[in-house]
């Protein structure tokens, strides 16, 4: 872990009065699939463009493979980029697009041809070499952009929302292919996206960004199951938050007093909070189990009434009104049986149960 491929060291970028990236430091390890995730305008694309060299940091330094990059122009950096709209050269065919960056590689005609054929094989477009740029679909353009960058054998491949322009089915297919490709060739991928599902699917680690700052860096599972802050908990997936206060805290368990859920006991929590502190109790919608008949006196249970529901095919979302809480609680239920949609009737009583290790406790200001 001591030899990162990219190292951001106090990097800031200001455009006039606007700070796009604010004093950011973190490392990306060799061979990682690393994603920058955040809403538009959070600085993730600016950060990526600084790695590519299209933007110069206002402060700080970016190291690629141990070399400072401030004075290195984009054409001399050991990274290549897949652009958001792919930037396929319209006046060149697929072959010449892929060969574009190989002019100075010192290969013979035959060697180059072989490399291009291998690249076409890699992106599953053999025989497409003589196609014009205008004869390609969105997914094919994306693959050509990939091949054009990968043939340069960069130390890091930069991807700027490369799947954003594709429709849902194709996007999901390309996600799998992208992940397989990355594992196959073992190059570090630095991937920018605003689509959290995409980031969760693809990444080894994700940096969640907001307003120019990195909020948290963690694996997809950790971000989702043990978010480090209310912002991240709220940004990744859906989350129900309940106001509360820590009653007691030991190494093995925490109890939190809440107005809506009563006393909640939490196990397997990473939090360092101590008794008396204000806290959020956060529970994911799918981790609250609805029960439609009275389970009797039971720990980690609350009762309410059914509110509006939404049928989503594989699962249903419904809102449950709790007596001590103004906003309804969102509950997600897998539709395991075809008849399950019949169960959700408005205003019927419902009990919610959850496991004590399904609860996340977060500090509340």
């Amino acid at each position, binding site marked *: 872990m001591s030899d990162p491929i990219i190292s951001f060291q106090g990097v800031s970028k200001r455009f006039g009065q606007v700070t796009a990236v604010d004093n950011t430091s973190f490392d990306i390890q060799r061979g990682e699939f690393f994603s920058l995730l955040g809403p538009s305008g959070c600085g993730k694309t600016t950060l990526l463009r600084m790695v590519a*060299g299209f933007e110069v940091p206002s402060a700080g330094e970016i190291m690629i493979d141990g070399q400072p990059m401030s004075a290195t122009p984009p054409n001399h950096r050991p990274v290549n980029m897949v652009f958001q709209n792919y*930037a396929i050269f319209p006046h060149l065919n697929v072959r010449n697009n892929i060969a574009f960056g190989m002019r100075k590689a010192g290969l013979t005609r035959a060697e180059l041809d072989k490399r291009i054929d291998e690249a076409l094989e890699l992106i599953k477009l053999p025989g497409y070499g003589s196609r*014009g*740029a*205008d004869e390609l679909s969105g997914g094919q353009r994306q693959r050509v952009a990939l091949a054009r960058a990968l043939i340069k054998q960069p130390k890091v491949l930069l991807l700027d929302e490369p799947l954003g322009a594709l429709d849902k089915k194709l996007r999901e297919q390309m996600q799998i292919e992208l992940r397989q490709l990355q594992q196959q060739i073992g190059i570090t991928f630095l991937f920018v996206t605003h689509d959290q599902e995409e980031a969760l699917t693809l990444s080894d680690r994700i940096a969640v960004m907001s307003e120019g700052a990195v909020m948290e860096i963690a694996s997809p599972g950790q971000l989702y199951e043990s978010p480090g802050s209310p912002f991240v908990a709220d940004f990744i997936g859906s989350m129900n938050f309940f106001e509360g206060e820590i009653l007691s805290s030991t190494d093995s368990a925490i109890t939190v007093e809440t107005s809506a859920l009563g006393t909640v006991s939490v196990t397997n929590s990473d939090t360092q909070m101590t008794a008396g502190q204000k806290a959020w109790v956060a529970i994911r919608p799918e981790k609250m189990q609805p029960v439609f008949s009275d389970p009797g006196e039971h720990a980690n249970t609350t009762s309410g009434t059914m509110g509006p529901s939404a049928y989503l095919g594989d699962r249903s979302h419904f809102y449950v009104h709790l007596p001590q809480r103004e906003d309804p609680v969102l509950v997600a239920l897998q539709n395991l049986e075809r008849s399950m949609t019949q169960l959700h009737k408005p205003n019927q009583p419902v009990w919610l149960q959850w496991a004590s290790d399904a609860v996340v406790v977060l500090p509340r200001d």
Partner: protein
Amino acid sequence: MNANRPWWRPDGFAVYAIIYLTFIYLPVLFLPLFSFNKSKYIAFPLKGFTLQWYEKMINTPDLLEALMNSVKVGVAVAVLSTMFGLLAAKAVTRYRIPGRGPVMGFIMVPLVIPGIILAIALLILITQLDIPLSLWTVGFAHMLLCTPFAMLVLISRMEGFDKSLEEAALDLGESAWMTFWRVTFPIVLPGIIASLLLTFTISFDEFVLAFFLTSTDPTLPIYIWSSLRFPTKIPPVLALGATIFVLSFVVVSFAEWIRRRGVKLESSSGI
């Protein structure tokens, strides 16, 4: 047009189109018509077919010299103003320039100044500076006139294509200079050709500036204008006019073909 309508019963739009085209082209067609007419007077009835005016055109050194003057000035002006236009278009569309608005405004001003005002102003300036009038001064004036046109054509072309194409070339290891030649230039080429043709044409038939700023070497419009006083000189001018007409038709068709090819490439560069 309605596909079911027989050709001998055109609808209103077709009639309008035919009248419009007639209105534009009928006067122009008198040129070739009278250039083959045996009489030296431009009047009906026609007296019979002849090629003598074309022969005489070739054997009139003054006329050919005026033509060559115009071509020389036109080519130089076209190349230089297109080059300046390209540099300006690149600067305006690719970089953040302080005071871009006023600068663009000043460059575009010659478009709206009446030619005769510009001509007088330039004449005063040039005589004040003791620069002898010549084809050079005409060319200089034409550049002033043509550069805004070149800029307009090229700015729209540069704005039309995706900046990330140039970034992609840089990213793939090319220098700024090679990026220009391998990406920018081929994509902007239809605009460059359009600009060359447009500026050449403007210079080629420009009269007022040339009239004020030339000395003993007339450009073609000046020569034609001065020939009008001598009826015998007119028929070879008609022959030349007809020749230029045919040539421009060929050149413009070619330019249009190039432009369409460019549009086709352009449309394929989008997502």
